[in-house]
């Protein structure tokens, strides 16, 4: 068992870089983070729309999709 484990890659460097990225984003000014949130929301908008549509279809299965 212990031999097999030694074949796994060491991801500590990746995790450290991820933590550093998180700290850097956390250190941005509030106003800068607001702008990031605008961008994030725009990026996921198609997913949110699809989710809403799916909910509507589940609630009204007989209603056909329009638009």
């Amino acid at each position, binding site marked *: 068992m212990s031999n097999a484990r030694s074949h796994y890659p060491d991801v500590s460097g990746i995790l450290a870089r991820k933590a550093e990225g998180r700290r850097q984003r956390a250190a941005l000014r509030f106003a800068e*983070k*607001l702008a990031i949130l605008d961008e994030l929301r*725009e990026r996921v908008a198609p997913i949110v729309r699809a989710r809403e549509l799916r909910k509507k279809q589940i609630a009204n299965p007989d209603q056909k999709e329009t638009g």
Partner: protein
Amino acid sequence: MSLQKSIEVVTKLAELGVIRRYAIAGAVAALNYIQPTLTEDLDILVSITDLETHKSGLLLLSPIEKALAQMGYSERSSVGYMVEGWPVQFLPVASPLDEEALDQAIEVDVDFTGAASMKARCLRAEHIVAIALKVGRLKDLARIEAFLSDGRVDLIALKGVLERHLLLEAWKDFCYKAGISNPLSAA
């Protein structure tokens, strides 16, 4: 669509006296301390003295609704009033914890254009964590974990808030679920 403009409208409501005491809460308030995470709305904690009380005892948001309509924001979504493309949810103070959080809210700079500075009121880190603990959804617990791992909450202040609002047991449960030793033991 701009969250900054949505907050600007909220500050305008305060300037006009429509809301006397308010603070940004929820995920957008957490932004002031930790990295940005996706959210679908802007939560604004407001004092109940800003609201109308119906004879049935229900609190009404009519004064805010009227003022927003006069400013051209009459659309509503399932999660709040649409203001500059963002749903804004006005949450009346609903507990002594909310009341304290609102009283002790701080001012944050919302402007990043270099023009005249615009400030808005925002909850303190220890209150955001305590409220997240009380609400207790998975995303709230993840938010607490982010505050702790980034060292963005004053542990002594947090301990005080949790003691005052009888949340120490909930805190121990959180630590158990998160698999961490209680960071408040040394605080």
